[in-house]
């Protein structure tokens, strides 16, 4: 199933947002209000482009399990934990992250 009709749906939603964010110009010139909304709306452009080009591959391999994915999440959480408990957690996170990436590469190429 190709993604063009999905892209059209996203485009309709984006169009609604463009109308609403443009309407705001009639009420305020506040830069922050416009910047926040328009940045959100602009992000939809690559999303629509992705949807237009999306299609299902004829064959694909499904992973039953992924230790690499779980470890990657742990690594990111450890890096975030570093904000509260210090550099050691960031370093642990980085180390776990390296292991996670290696595992993910091995899983993908297995």
């Amino acid at each position, binding site marked *: *199933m*190709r*993604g063009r*009709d*999905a*892209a*059209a*749906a*996203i485009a*309709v*939603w984006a169009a*609604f*947002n463009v109308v*609403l*964010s443009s*309407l*705001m110009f*009639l*009420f*305020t010139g*506040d830069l*922050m*209000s416009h910047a*926040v*909304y328009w940045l*959100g*709306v602009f*992000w*939809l452009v690559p*999303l629509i482009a*992705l*949807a237009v080009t*999306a*299609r*299902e591959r*004829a*064959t*694909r*391999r*499904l*992973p*039953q*399990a*992924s*230790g*690499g*994915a*779980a470890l*990657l*999440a*742990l690594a*990111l*959480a450890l890096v*975030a*934990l570093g*904000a*509260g408990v210090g550099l050691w957690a960031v370093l642990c996170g980085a180390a776990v992250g390296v292991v996670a990436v290696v595992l*993910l590469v091995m*899983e993908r190429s*297995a």
Partner: protein
Amino acid sequence: MGRAGAGPEAGTVSLVAPRPPYAPVRGVAGAVVATDHKAVAARTLATAFGFFIAGGVIALLMRWELATPGMQLTSRAGYDELFSMHGSTMIYLFVTPAALALGTYLVPLQVGAAEIAGPRVNLVGYWLFAFGGLLAWSSFLARDGAASAAWTAEFPMSDAANTPGSGMDLWIAGVMCATTGVILLAACQLATIVARRAPGMTMLRLPVFTWTMVVTCLMVLTAFPSLLIAMGGLALDRHGVDVYPGAGGATAYQHLFWFYGHPVVYVMFFPFVGASLEVIATFSGRRVFGYRGVVLSLLAFAALSMAVWGHHMFTTGQVANRYFSLTSTMLAVPAGMEYVAAVGTLIGGALRLRTAMLFALAFFLQFLIGGLTGIYTGSPPLDYHVHDSYFVVAHFHYTLLAGSVFGLFAAVYYWWPKVTGFRLREGLGRLHLALFVIGTNVTFLPMFVLGYDGMPRRVANYRPADGWTTLNLVATGGAFVIAVSVAVFLLNVYVSWLRSEPAGPDPWGGQTLEWATASPPPRLNFTAPLPPVRSAEPLLDLRGVPTPEALP
């Protein structure tokens, strides 16, 4: 191994069988690393429900504290931590991930896909959410206590000077992890809808629930990065980088936060609208009334909900109140369309008042109170009066607990047989519903009066002379009734599991593709050819129920 569509538009997608090193992993390791979207969704929902219980215990402590004047349980600083962690837990760690968990389980099944797109990314999403929750809750272990700047972490209340200590830092890290996880879950669902639909499943044949997940995922992908930016800035600011300088900085933080903070309300609402509409359609024996109107109104509703964040900032005087009041009031139009769809589906239907149906009806009725008071708070002059009062607390609890959580339970009772293979008990389900209805209304209706009388939110104490004691006592009683109702639900799960009654693939006479496979579904969702997809309710087509277009 594979999935084959059937019917005139059928095609085949072959899936290469997993090789030996990636054969099913069982036990604890399987629970940690399995990528099956159904397992990930079940884990997400179970984890979110665990946080619901934890956040609920905090709510009981808060209500105990407020039952009578004076300090009963905790200090003022302790109370700040309690309401901050209660709100954070319920929004970041319960309702939002639970809403996404429903989609993670159901979207691939409803669109006829064998698996979710990006199963590894999906798994990362779950674990980031789970670790994020643990990080946020670990802030209770910090020397200076947990986060205490509300779920909004309003700046400068949340800066290093006003909220010192690592508790706040851990909370920020946890919120960022959990939110990133939710973004990943949403991305996988949207990718599945875009690229993994079964042959014949055009966008205008998507089930209503899946449509609500489309708009939910769009909102997550568009609005949630704003929270990451706001929290990242806050983390940097707390460590010496002047990200939000002066009064303008505080306003900038609010813009970034509320650009996430209002859409998230609808992220916690739309999936339950979709679930409740499907439940009502199934138990009415009819198709969802005005399907195309519902789809259009969902798109408009979701867009409008991106344009209303400023109504949370009316009293700052720094936003265009007329614009945000206009867009907030306009929300009533698409919301009304959803209600028209629900009522239109019910009219003329052969109603079966099962527990799921009753929860769905209660969802629409209870949410109405939250929705209508939203029009009230969307008006700046009225909002100035009730801002930061218990009126607002009552309003958003009617949307989130008395609204969305009813929708969640409707979904749980409806899809439980599909997920587990056995039904929940009807009698205990009805008791759960009755207690939940009584509890929520006894808890939150008095808060409208308290707020209108001027009781501010986020206070640990009040004077006897304020005259708020009776209503606070009533609200506290109601909170404990809610706790009993949740206990009844857990008892129902236990009893139903202990003496399980096999449900079969389609116990309710469902309308969408998930009911065309076994309960619980196999690893690749469908083992038999899919029925032809010629409408949003392919199983009704199989039973010969004409589509509205086919009627004379």
